[in-house]
């Protein structure tokens, strides 16, 4: 997170990261011509970039991450607009058109009861995106509260929280998730909830080490020395600077959550059968006889899951480079 090539926070002029407030040379880009002391206001708008815009420029240079961002954006749009763009009702049974290969009527063919694979795949995006985004929102909140408290309060509190994290990390999360979803009953919101409450340990560790680093930064010490309260420092100086770690952990987490939901549904323990989920579609087609004769039934959802997961992983990787985050999120 600490950026050695000096960086200035525009709002209050405090130096972020770099040890000396020297002339900013953002991201190695050549300085714009002619920013002299005289036209400083001009220079401020063109030469000094806020940390946000600098990160965005670095992210944009990461081609795979941009491609990933576009794919995820398209999948989110697909999920939202599913009823409009899907050519058929995803659950409509049509016994006149069972097990059809891809054709102009059914681009990705139909399944054993004549449901349109493309429409089911489009509605499947809803399940994956919902689980991905909401589960991660839950566990990032838990991770932030625990990680920041551990690092900022320190001492015994830190030890207790981190030991608890270690304990949760010992459990095979996927198995715990399976069991708890079994108790609660398989609904999409139960899956979101369960993935959310077991997913946080990796992110909590990342946030903790980030806050530990931030706590010793000069600007935090400066704030302390002028008598700023703990809560003020935490919310004004520390929380905004964990954004990098949070977004990295978040996008990698979305990938993990989508994988988990697909795995649960594939085992028949996740989203229940008629609901079109990519995992359910794979489960419907896993019989070796179906596998061989109707490959579109499992290739389409399988490729979509892989695409969604790899895209969020690319985004995470791009953000990690852009924010210069150290460490890993698993």
């Amino acid at each position, binding site marked *: 997170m600490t950026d050695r090539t000096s960086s200035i926070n525009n709002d209050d002029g405090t130096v972020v990261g770099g040890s000396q407030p020297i002339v900013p040379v953002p991201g190695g880009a050549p300085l714009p011509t002619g920013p002299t002391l005289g036209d400083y206001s001009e220079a401020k708008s063109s030469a000094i970039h806020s940390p946000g815009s600098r990160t965005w420029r670095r992210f944009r240079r990461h081609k795979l991450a941009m491609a990933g961002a576009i794919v995820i954006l398209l999948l989110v749009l697909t999920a939202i607009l599913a009823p409009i763009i899907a050519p058929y009702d995803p659950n409509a049974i049509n016994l006149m058109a069972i097990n059809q290969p891809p054709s102009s009527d059914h681009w990705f063919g139909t399944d054993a009861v004549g449901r349109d694979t493309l429409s089911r795949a489009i509605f499947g995006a809803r399940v994956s995106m919902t689980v991905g985004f909401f589960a991660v929102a839950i566990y990032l909140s838990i991770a932030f509260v625990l990680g920041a408290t551990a690092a900022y309060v320190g001492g015994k509190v830190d030890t207790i929280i981190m030991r608890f994290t270690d*304990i*949760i990390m010992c459990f095979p999360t*996927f198995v715990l998730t399976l*069991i708890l979803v079994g108790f609660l009953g398989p609904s999409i919101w139960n899956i979101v909830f369960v993935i959310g409450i077991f997913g946080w340990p990796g992110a909590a560790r990342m946030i903790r080490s980030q806050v530990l680093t931030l706590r010793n930064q000069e600007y935090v010490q400066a704030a302390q020395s002028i008598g700023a309260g703990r809560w003020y420092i935490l919310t004004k100086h520390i929380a905004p600077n964990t954004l990098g770690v949070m977004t990295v952990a978040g996008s990698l987490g979305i990938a993990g959550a989508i994988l988990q939901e697909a*795995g649960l549904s594939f*085992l028949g323990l996740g989203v229940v059968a008629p609901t079109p989920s990519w995992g359910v579609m*794979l489960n419907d087609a896993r019989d070796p006889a179906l596998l061989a004769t109707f490959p579109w039934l499992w290739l389409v959802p*399988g490729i979509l899951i892989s695409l969604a997961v*790899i895209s969020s992983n690319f985004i995470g990787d791009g953000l990690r480079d852009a924010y210069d985050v150290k460490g890993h999120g698993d």
Partner: protein
Amino acid sequence: MRYIIKRLVMVFPMLIGITIVSYTMLNLAPGDPMTAMMNPEDMAMLSDAQIEAERDRLGLNDPIILRYFSWLREVAQGNLGYSYKTGRPVLEMVIERIPATIAIAATAEIIAATVGITVGIYSALRQYSFFDNLFTIFSFFAVSVPNFFFALMGIFIFAVQLQWLPVFGMRTPGSGSGLTWDLISHMVLPVTALALPHIASYMRYARGAVLDAKSADHVRTARAKGLAEKKVFSGHVLRNAMIPMITIFTLSLPGLIGGSFVIESIFSWPGIGLMGFEALQNRDYPLQLGVTLILATLVLLANLLSDILYGIVDPRIRYD
């Protein structure tokens, strides 16, 4: 030595933590805990009054804290309860299934570590070369494509289309025991599907660790004093870069276990994963929790082992 003792002492609170989480789950499970604690055959012989007395003896009428301790006492004596489905002790059933799971999980882990670390080192030594980029892309695919999709593709290509490999089970009936070609051919697909994501993580971390070690000060010093490049690499870069691999091993364990649930159920591989999966389908709660408790304890012990190994290979840890 003090470090090792410190680590050993830490295990006990963590074991307690694991049992607390497991017990909470057990209490969330629907059904009467009594039926989970007793041999169902014995229970059928008892009258209602006797069952009530037994309930008192097992402490099931006590407040939850006391109940936890009496459950813990039973667990410490090796009573993980009885399976709803088969009526057999959970511990016995788990121990029976362990070898089959270890056969594929350990093979997958060894392959993943060997291939992943070798390729990772190769990539780091030729950073940004064609192969480095190729392997990086491959690693993204290997961690992103779900292992069950890999498994389905494997079945489709090698078992259904080419008919090279069998689809289900561990052995063809009547093919004999021990390490036979039949066993190996049954192992190829599940082991590959389990190993792929782990190959990728070993690869990425080995690459990163070698790159870090390459730019360390002591490596520059070694070069400056004129040491041969080969010796710099084997003595100074590689040895330091391999230490973090211990962590990757520990980190990969829970994933390996989660993966074995999915993979064993696809290939009907008779291991703990398949048993756990069937326990979930049958709502056999005592078996589910017994499996989880044992697996979590195994992961904890593996963690401990890796911490101790870390302390032995990396002296810096001991001065924390």
